[in-house]
């Protein structure tokens, strides 16, 4: 990789200042960044390691109305978290299939979002759960609904000098159910050809996150009643615009999306208990 300077700031203001420079890139788990550095797809002058920043948490905490996941929390932590497994099981499922054991021990949830892959596994349950991304520029904080966070493949609303500090998931108020589904070419380490998550609550609302079927992970919402018909399901899935690539053809993606959206909805309804 090309030479760069390395910084490991301890406070948020310093981190955001360092990231304000044009040639600076943030480093969290590094599982995407180091590959890009190696292929010289990025040639930063400085790499700003966010893992020492005290304001960026490595905890999963229950607040009054939501659960807060610090931006340093790695995938294996999510999988092991009782809070996540109990209240957000589709997120635990998605986190458990990202990369390999070795990747999951380094890769962060926030990094998966900031990398903004259209196929990001954890983005789909977070969209289904109406997650918000908390962003700071060192002075001020703003919260962005995840469906407004992605702007295209590999791009987000993050401005230069801003970092994600946490991800917030609203705690379901009544009974709820959710499920994650994923189509890959092989069972082990692979990127998704299609991935999706479904969340239903006892008011009959059904909310989906759909991955690898558009330029960004997509949110779609309807009601359980509407989705009982093929037409209703088709209207929900019209938001998808899959392309053909090395992992799957567009038609195959569309077909898998229909089948797995239906199955995930069924599983989520069963999870209502």
């Amino acid at each position, binding site marked *: 990789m090309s030479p760069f*300077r*390395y910084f490991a700031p301890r406070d948020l203001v310093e981190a955001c200042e360092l990231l304000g420079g044009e040639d600076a890139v943030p480093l969290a788990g*590094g*599982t995407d960044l*180091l590959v890009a550095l*190696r*292929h010289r797809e990025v040639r930063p002058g400085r790499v700003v*390691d966010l893992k020492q920043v005290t304001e960026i948490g490595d905890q999963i905490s229950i607040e009054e109305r939501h659960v807060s996941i610090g931006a340093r929390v790695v995938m294996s932590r999510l999988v092991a978290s009782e809070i996540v497994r109990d209240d957000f099981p589709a997120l635990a499922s998605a986190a458990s299939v990202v990369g390999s054991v070795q990747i999951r*021990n*380094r890769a962060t949830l926030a990094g998966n979002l900031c990398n903004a892959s259209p196929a990001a596994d954890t983005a789909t349950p977070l969209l289904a759960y109406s997650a918000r991304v908390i962003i700071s520029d060192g002075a001020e904080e703003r919260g962005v609904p995840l469906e407004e966070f992605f702007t295209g493949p590999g791009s987000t609303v993050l401005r230069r000098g801003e970092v994600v500090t946490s991800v917030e998931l609203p705690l379901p108020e009544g009974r709820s159910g959710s499920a994650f589904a994923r189509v890959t070419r092989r069972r082990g380490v692979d990127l998704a050809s299609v991935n999706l998550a479904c969340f239903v609550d006892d008011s009959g609302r059904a909310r989906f996150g759909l991955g690898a079927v558009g330029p960004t992970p997509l949110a779609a919402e309807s009601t359980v009643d509407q989705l009982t018909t093929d037409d209703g399901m088709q209207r929900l899935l019209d938001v998808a615009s899959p392309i053909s690539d090395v992992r799957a053809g567009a038609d195959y993606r569309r077909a898998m999306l229909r089948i797995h959206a239906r199955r995930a909805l069924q599983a989520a309804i069963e999870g209502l208990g």
Partner: protein
Amino acid sequence: MSQESIIDVTINHARRTVSAPPSMTLLEMLRSRLGLTGTKECCAEGECGACTVIMDGDPVNSCLVLAVETEGSVVTTIEGVGNNGMTYLQESFLDAGAVQCGFCIPGMVVAATALLERTPEPSANEVRDALSGNLCRCGGYDRICDAVLRATSGARHDA
């Protein structure tokens, strides 16, 4: 720009002070600065697991960690597994005939060591999941899984 950083890190139970440029990976530091060539470089992008080491208790791909990120960490490489001769797990790899060309084996042994530390009696599926980030081009997966299952505490008790 190419200035070196000084890194204090514990490697295989010994405190080390290593000099490395910021763009050097942990894998490169182990092999070229410390002569620990048991950790193998293969894909160098986190796909194959040949470079697996245990960092602060967790198996990670050393090709995806910058050397400077290990400041203050505790790292165990294949050389640190079985400091006093071979471990029971390593003996099991021999007994099961799990080694063909051998290139993936250090990564396999390190990943399996991390698994057995956390889960002393894994099921066959847990072994397969734990090793799914380690590729073997010889295709010796069944024997490798056998080897790990032979080394579980239950199997040792039966032996």
